[in-house]
């Protein structure tokens, strides 16, 4: 199995449910996954299909009736759905003038009839089709209210899901839907996309990063740089500077990058260690590595202690190197710290001609930052940018932007690090 294109064991994938909601799951062998009212299925049944496949969950009649534990969702079988069926050829009224009362009585099918249909192992789509047939005044509804009615019913009876690749954008969407807006600083997909391009993110760069989104920004960077490929040999690196003792990159636990990969490609260093790294002599006076053979020869207890100290020593050396020897290829920053202080100091470590891109939920802190960078000759033309997406109801004959949507998405400041020249002396011409 290729986990980048197929559903593979022990991978995190994200499932799209009929309600439009998303759920992140891990595909453990021989396990089942419950989707609540949308049913349950066995992981083994979907393994090997391409990512992006839609499955319908269905139940044999016996399985349905044999539910001893009322609370446990019975595990159904799955079949691949070929094309999302939809009700196109229904007459619709241009308006709803004649539809005075919409009550339960026009539904046509009783709950018993619906249950009966369910037992006949009829698919959700078919139940809905039957309901439309039986609906006394369905054709008197406007197209708009027909659509709304169908969607409502679909969410109630349909049992299907699409298993998708867990991209950065889908992770973001998942978090926004479950209400973690503040955790990700109100970021949007379009702003994140713009950040990645403006920062000129490539697989071969070393990027300085402040990530107050719990690792989401780092995940976007990793995806853009390595495309989810644990076997990547690209030489890019991400260095995360954090304000607490330890970097919070919790969201990476959903990623399919191995711990080893993350350790190798994502380095973390605290603000303190970044701006006040230990001196090399301090570190070297505290510990001196032994020649390899001598280290090997140490006795068990001693050996452990030695390697613990060696790890500390190497970490210190690395921190020194990240803080003093690297000229970064971009600064990407999503932080709520006071930016006019944070950004110029971090950007001191950015190579000339490389981008500085700061995300902020609010425009006002970026305005403050823009004014302060504007007066600093090390920054070229700081600009505040906003990008907003506007989705449409994409149904032929009924095209229009969606009526309501989540706001937000934040703002970006984009500038380039430059190296001011001395003002040349006036020459006598």
């Amino acid at each position, binding site marked *: 199995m290729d986990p980048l294109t197929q559903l593979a064991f022990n991978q995190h994938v994200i499932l799209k449910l009929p309600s439009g909601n998303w759920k992140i799951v891990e595909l453990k062998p021989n396990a089942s996954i419950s989707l609540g009212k949308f049913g349950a299925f066995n992981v*083994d049944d979907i393994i090997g299909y391409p990512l992006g496949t839609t499955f319908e969950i269905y139940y044999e009649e016996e399985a349905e009736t044999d539910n001893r534990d009322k609370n446990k969702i019975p595990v159904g079988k799955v079949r691949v759905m070929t094309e999302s069926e939809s009700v196109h050829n229904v007459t619709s009224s241009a308006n709803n003038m004649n539809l005075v009362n919409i009550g339960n009585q026009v539904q046509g099918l009783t709950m018993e009839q619906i249950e009966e249909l369910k037992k006949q192992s009829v698919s959700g789509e078919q139940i809905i089709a039957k309901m439309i047939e039986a609906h006394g005044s369905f054709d008197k509804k406007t197209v708009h209210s027909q659509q709304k009615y169908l969607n409502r019913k679909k969410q109630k009876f349909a049992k299907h899901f699409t298993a998708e690749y867990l991209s950065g954008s889908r992770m973001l969407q998942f978090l926004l839907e479950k209400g973690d807006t503040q955790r990700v600083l109100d970021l949007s997909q379009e702003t994140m996309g713009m950040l990645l391009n403006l920062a000129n993110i490539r697989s071969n760069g070393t990027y300085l990063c402040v990530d107050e989104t719990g690792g989401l920004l780092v995940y976007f960077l990793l995806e853009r740089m390595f495309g989810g490929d644990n076997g990547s040999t690209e030489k890019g690196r991400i260095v995360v500077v954090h304000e607490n003792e330890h970097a919070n990159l919790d969201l990476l636990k959903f990623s399919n990058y191995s711990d080893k990969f993350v350790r190798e490609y994502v380095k973390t260093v605290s603000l303190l260690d970044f701006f006040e790294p230990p001196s090399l002599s301090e570190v070297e006076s505290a510990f001196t590595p032994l020649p390899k053979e001598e280290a090997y020869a140490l006795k068990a207890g001693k050996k452990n202690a030695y390697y613990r100290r060696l790890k500390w020593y190497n970490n210190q050396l690395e921190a020194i190197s990240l803080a003093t020897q690297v000229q970064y290829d971009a600064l990407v920053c999503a932080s709520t710290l006071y930016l006019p202080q944070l950004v110029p100091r971090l950007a001191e470590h950015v190579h000339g001609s490389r981008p500085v891109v700061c995300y902020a939920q609010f425009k006002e802190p970026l305005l403050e930052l823009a004014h302060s960078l504007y007066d600093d000759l090390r920054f070229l033309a700081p600009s505040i940018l906003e990008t907003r997406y506007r989705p449409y109801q994409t149904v032929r004959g009924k095209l229009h932007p969606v009526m309501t949507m989540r706001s937000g998405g934040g703002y970006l400041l984009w500038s380039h690090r430059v190296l001011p020249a001395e003002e040349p002396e006036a020459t006598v011409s």
Partner: protein
Amino acid sequence: MSAFSEYRDVIKEGELVLVWISRDNIKPIKVDSNETFNTRYGSFPHKLMIGKPYGSQIAIRTKGSNKFAFIHVLQPTPELWTLSLPHRTQIVYTPDSSYIMERLNCSPRTKAIEAGTGSGSFSHAFARTVGHLYSYEFHKPRYEEALAEFEEHGLIHHDKNVTITHRDVCANGFSIRSSDVTSHKFNEGEGSVTIGANAVFLDLPAPWDAIPHLDSVISKNEKVGLCCFSPCIEQVDRTIEALNKHGWDDLQMVEIQGRQYESRRQMVRTMDDAIERLRDVKRRKNEGLERRKRMCDNILNDQPQEEINDEKRPTTEKTKFNPFGKGSRIKEGDTAYKWKQVTKIEPEIKSHTSYLTFAFKVVNKTRDEDQVKSELDSL
């Protein structure tokens, strides 16, 4: 490696650099120690750039007036390159291109199709990120221009991840054969290129004519993303029709609105100061008013006319209290005044670029049952 794919430290002879004169004036040059870069602010010998780190400010004293003048020398990026293009051509700007790339989940794993190439602005952004880009242009002169530019920029021979082909994809599809006018160098016995794209971008007036040709060049065993870029809503409608017909799913059309803000300052003008100024004006007018009042009173009290004529028309002395400046234009941010930081949207906005219609397709929704079985057995 090209100027677009390698992080360079110091400017060297022969390299492509972008000279930043101002936000609206960015010019690409090839560094040549015998050349001089001329602006209306002054002349900059390329020699001054060589050996300096990228991002350096290059400063001169102008001949004659002896004024301080400077430029910045930058390494090109796709976004800076886009800014440097003349605005007359139809360009896919960064708010759109970055959204499309994110939505199609572009990474080194991506094999992308782009038709048409157009100004080549989006091609650069794709090329930076994707594994391989197949770009198609049907307009012969534009194809030749883009080919020359991509070669010059190292995208074709150095980075080897861009193929450009002269083709009307609506009429003739996307397959690249050895008889075609294309940048692809065919090996002995190689009859056609295996494309297997998993991301497709169509910037065509009639994408519905191109859509049926896609099936033969897209990847069969994974989810493929497609974006059509169309200015008019009627094009979107026909595109949706074609996408439905040819088995594309998850249709969604969106617009992207990009905005840029200027950082400005507005003078803080208190009402107390305004009133104080009026009070000052009044004080200075008072004498005049008093005189005028006396004039009237004199008449009413039957004072002789002569006396009245003696008093000249009252002259009002202008106020000397000018808390907000004296009508003259004050430089924004002048430290003699208090200022409030404000944002101002750019004066002219791009209110519409195009509609982006996205769709997705998995061709083979099947699995290899034997492989699954063996994998399960090996657990």
